[in-house]
């Protein structure tokens, strides 16, 4: 029983890591209708921004954190302007967007390898390594803080989308970009704001990743798990992304803990294919039809 409780805590903690990545990715998907595979690269930059702010600029944690997510928001907007906007303007097929995203992702990872180098870097210790014990279950301090901050950010995002004028413009554009433009929504600005928001979430995720798992150029590869999680939950749905992430985290943990750690990812993959066969839109996905 003690092990089961501990495994649930592990699963939730891993799931919340996936969620932080999956939401930014899903948000962009809901507007642009394509998978922004450069998201992992932006997360990696966030980890480096935070790291260098703390070690080179000697900034306190909160300032470094802010610097990181502002930096990634700018980076995400720049990527959109350079790599996607020209495609958007001539309404290129979705394949071109994905290839462009792949190019951006390759560029981001390798520019770090070529300039800063492939070595691992460790964040300075901020919250302490000792964990909090509740009976036989232990919870990492960082995990708890991460959980709280992610929850705050995600709530903030939901409020922004539900309550503000810009949020409603985002919703309208997600529903139908062309119709929204006809109704007077500045869709170009909407896209920019969405990328900035996605970039901010990537920066937050990046800093936490760096603190939790060290910083290195391939750290963005963990995002592949969050793509899978987003499909679980239903592409383009924010609550779906969160739910899918938590589910994937828990499933993976239980598989590793009780079935076989050797085949963990294989079993997760089979479950994914199963979900796609029986429920193609994921748990809470919107329609899979192409928007004409």
């Amino acid at each position, binding site marked *: 029983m003690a092990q089961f409780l501990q495994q649930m805590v592990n699963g939730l903690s891993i799931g919340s890591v996936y969620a932080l990545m999956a939401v930014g990715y899903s948000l962009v998907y809901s507007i642009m209708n394509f998978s922004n595979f450069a998201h992992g690269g932006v997360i990696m930059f966030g980890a480096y921004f935070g790291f260098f702010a703390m070690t080179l600029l000697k900034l306190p944690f909160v300032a470094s954190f802010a610097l990181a997510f502002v930096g990634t928001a700018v980076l995400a907007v720049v990527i959109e302007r350079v790599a996607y906007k020209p495609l958007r303007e001539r309404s290129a097929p979705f394949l071109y967007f994905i290839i462009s995203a792949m190019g951006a992702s390759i560029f981001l990872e390798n520019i770090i390898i070529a300039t800063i180098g492939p070595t691992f870097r460790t964040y300075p210790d901020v919250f302490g390594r000792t964990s909090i014990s509740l009976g036989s279950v232990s919870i990492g301090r960082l995990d708890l803080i991460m959980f709280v901050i992610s929850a705050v950010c995600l709530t903030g995002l939901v409020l922004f989308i539900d309550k503000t004028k810009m949020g409603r413009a985002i919703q309208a554009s997600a529903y139908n970009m062309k119709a929204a433009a006809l109704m007077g929504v500045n869709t170009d600005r909407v896209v920019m704001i969405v990328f900035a928001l996605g970039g901010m979430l990537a920066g937050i995720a990046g800093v936490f990743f760096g603190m939790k798992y*060290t910083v290195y150029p*391939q750290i963005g*590869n963990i995002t592949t798990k969050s793509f899978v999680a987003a499909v679980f939950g239903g592409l383009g749905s924010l609550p779906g992304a969160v739910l899918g992430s938590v589910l994937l985290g828990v499933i993976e943990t239980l598989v590793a803990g009780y079935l076989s750690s050797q085949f963990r990812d294989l079993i997760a993959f089979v479950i994914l294919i199963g979900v796609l066969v029986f429920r193609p839109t994921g748990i809470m996905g919107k329609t899979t039809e192409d928007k004409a």
Partner: protein
Amino acid sequence: MRIRNIVAAAVVALALASCGGEKQADVIKVGWFGALTGDQAVWGNNEFNTVKMLFEEINAAGGVTVGGKAYTLEAVGYDNKGDAQEAVNVVRRLTSQDKVVAVLGPNASGNAIPIAPILEGAKVPDIATVATNPKVTVLDGKVKPYNFRVCFIDPYQGAVAAGYAFDVLGARRAAVLYDVSDDYSQGLREFFIENFEKKGGAVVADESFKSGDVDFRPQLSKIKAQNPDIIFMPYFFKEVALSANQARELGITQVLMGGDGWPSDQLISMGGAAVEGCYFVNHLDYEDPDVADYKARYLKKYGIETELNGYLVHDAVVLLVDALKRAGEPSGEAIAKALESADVKGITGRIKISPQTHNPEGKDAAIIKIVGGKYIFQQKYAAE
């Protein structure tokens, strides 16, 4: 540079072709390859720097006398990025374009195995540095004629770790966490379990992860529930540091143990207190008086500390120079023949090549303990 290489290669080739290495040529080309870029770059650069430094020293002291004639040594090195396909490319290039008489490296078994047919075709021997998979030199019970190495092999390292854990540390219940997608990790895991169980110990958990994973808590929680005496972690320092930190976070206080993938400055900076008091099997004792001289020379020339690979490539050079002297002529075939009967004293121990396996026989392993953030030598340990 390229033109000079080609010209030099042509000269060597002409000389070799005309009269079996007579008066004209006085340079012997030796190849090296390994990862100079990518995440193994630290080790590759360390190896190549060591080779270049030793060749300079040898040349300054008058070179190597082969068959009554003095030759200088020239190192030709290529980056294979730690990739098996690239390894095949660069060895083809070394043997057919650069006409080297011998190849040093690589450090990864997965890169050393596929080059065997090319070496055999070109009749050029290779001395691997830290490639510990048995199949590097022996395949299907037959020794590969042109593959040699200076390190001990995985079954031996696994046996040493199991023996030390059982006999010296008194562990009876062991747990294993390993990287299922890494050849080195799988090899050590297999031979550790085999030997630990042979001694009468029980392996109570056998868990794995896959390269690129960063969270090991599900596996560690399962291991914790089995309450082992020791946890064997046969993989590289980055994952060791991450998994050790996570194990301590989960309240696992047991001693951790590993292999030669552990030693690195980064293990201490990333793992810190989590690996304090833990043990690993190594190829040598860093404080051994035999290695002090090389260590100091390397530090003086390059301004940084040498890594584990440097010591082994040092001994690969020692082995090669000895074989060259006894070969009678600077040809790959003659060198390979001389290597089969080599018995030299290197800085990592005595290297007596077995003609049946092409491995150094009876090389002791060193047990290192991490105390106060330092690698403290415990004892030499030989498995039976």
